[in-house]
């Protein structure tokens, strides 16, 4: 049961290009109140004392670094508690904060089934193509942490970088 921090990369940059820029409106669509609120007042910020698993991920594009701590119920399936720490841009931090609330009560399988669209739905704003990487970082870190925990993945400290 790996509890030491390890790192994970979000999806490659270019996948994010599937999101057309034309869906973006003017005005700070990405920086609606909810995002800013989570950025300024992060929920579940910190580290758990006795996490079932822990994982760290990096998005060098923004210099984002996020650690996700997850504690499971005794059924070893239901997520009981989540905490995150690290720093980075508003999008990645707000996403981690919202995800930490969202995951509570979900099963590990439900976490693993989440995809980019779910994250963007959760954020409730249009994410511009170049920022999708920031948005999905926390989700990817949690997922890779879960997979490592289940023994399905063996990643070293990995990061992505596009320029």
């Amino acid at each position, binding site marked *: 049961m790996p509890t030491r921090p390890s790192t994970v990369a979000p999806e490659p*940059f*270019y996948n994010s*290009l599937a999101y057309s820029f034309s869906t973006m409106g003017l005005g700070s669509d990405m920086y609606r109140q909810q995002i800013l609120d989570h950025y300024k007042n992060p929920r579940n910020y910190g580290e758990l004392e006795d996490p079932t698993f822990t994982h760290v991920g990096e998005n*060098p594009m923004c210099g984002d670094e996020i650690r996700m701590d997850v504690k499971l119920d005794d059924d070893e399936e239901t997520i009981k508690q989540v905490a995150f720490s690290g720093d980075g841009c508003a999008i990645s931090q707000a996403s981690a904060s919202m995800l930490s609330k969202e995951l509570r009560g979900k099963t590990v399988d439900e976490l693993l089934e989440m995809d980019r669209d779910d994250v963007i739905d959760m954020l409730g704003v249009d994410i511009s193509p170049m920022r999708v990487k920031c948005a999905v970082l926390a989700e990817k870190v949690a997922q890779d942490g879960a997979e490592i925990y289940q023994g399905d993945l063996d990643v070293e400290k990995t*990061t992505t*970088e*596009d*320029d």
Partner: protein
Amino acid sequence: MSQQNLESLDVEAIREEFPILEREFDGEQVVYLDNAATTQTPDPVVDAMSDYYREYNANVHRGIHHLSQEASIAYEEAHDRVADFIGADGREEIIFTKNTTEAENLVAYAWGLNELGPDDEIVLTEMEHHASLVTWQQIGKQTGADVEYIRVTEDGRLDMDHARELITDDTAMLSAVHVSNTLGTVNPVSKLVDIAHEHDALAFIDGAQAVPNRPVDVDAIDADFYAFSGHKMAGPTGIGALYGKQELLEEMQPYLYGGGMIRKVTFEDSTWDELPWKFEPGTPQIAEAVGLVAAIDWLEEIGMDRVQAHEEEITRYAYEQLTAEPDVEIYGPEPGSERAGLVGFNVDGVHAHDLASIMNDHTVAIRAGDHCTQPLHDKLGVAASARASFYVYNTKDEVDKLVAAIDDARQLFA
């Protein structure tokens, strides 16, 4: 190829997209038969690049602003379009280079310099273009690997028995031209690749003369690497593509270093980005990638089968006309599916360069020289040859003008 297909190819309409074909020198309209050197570029391709510069020019990767988003998407998707066009699995397998020549060098440097040693053999063919011949020859010298050449037969084909003899378990790399730019031969590349793979060798196919004028499927060929140039397929100068199997590209060391290919850099060391970016440092050929996509769109609108059929038709006609001349020697196989759209030849008693000059006086543009296959010319026993090469906009009338110019040369030198 059915005649029906051919008849539906409206060459006159196609020619209208090429203003350069209207050019006149001293009142004579140019007859452009130098397509194996470079093809002409139709208006939609030129316009696509102008639109890029006038509407969404920006540097790619990471730019958060609108223009960079548009440019990035166009540039990234160009990889997808090329992958799709040649049957690759995805953008990870397509690396943009300057041209075919750089694609050969990329593999020679990133793979060859690191993997080859004195116990290895590199097998080439006697009809290789200097782009692969000189590159592998020199990498061979640097690494101690032996270089051997598959023989070309009298009728301009590869001696496949000799290929089977040369390719052994010591062979590390086979590099072969798909279509010879001198003989017009279409080589049995998937057979060659199979032989290489039987001996655990890698196979690099030079598709510079194949991709422009016939459907190519790198997956069916099972090539490990495959390369071609934009400027030979109705596209722009300054861009070529290297296809490589993803697992091979992933294992390979980088080639050029710089921004856009790194993951993390410290003063001490660096790590590399994902494919294909790992092999594309610096600001890439963005406008050129946009132009290449426009060229692919344009070719696919015509249909690669029809491009091929048209070339075969014109080539057969040219071959027949030239064979009828007793003093013309033609190189390479007879017309058909093993001969692509070019005819290399010499006229007895007329040096190829004199012939090309006289052709030019008739505004017929052909190429004369060794066509970057000097060793093959040495083998043919000639210093140079004349080459007429055709594309989708050429007509039989133009072939007639070529033949008339030969008559003139013959009279001059009689």
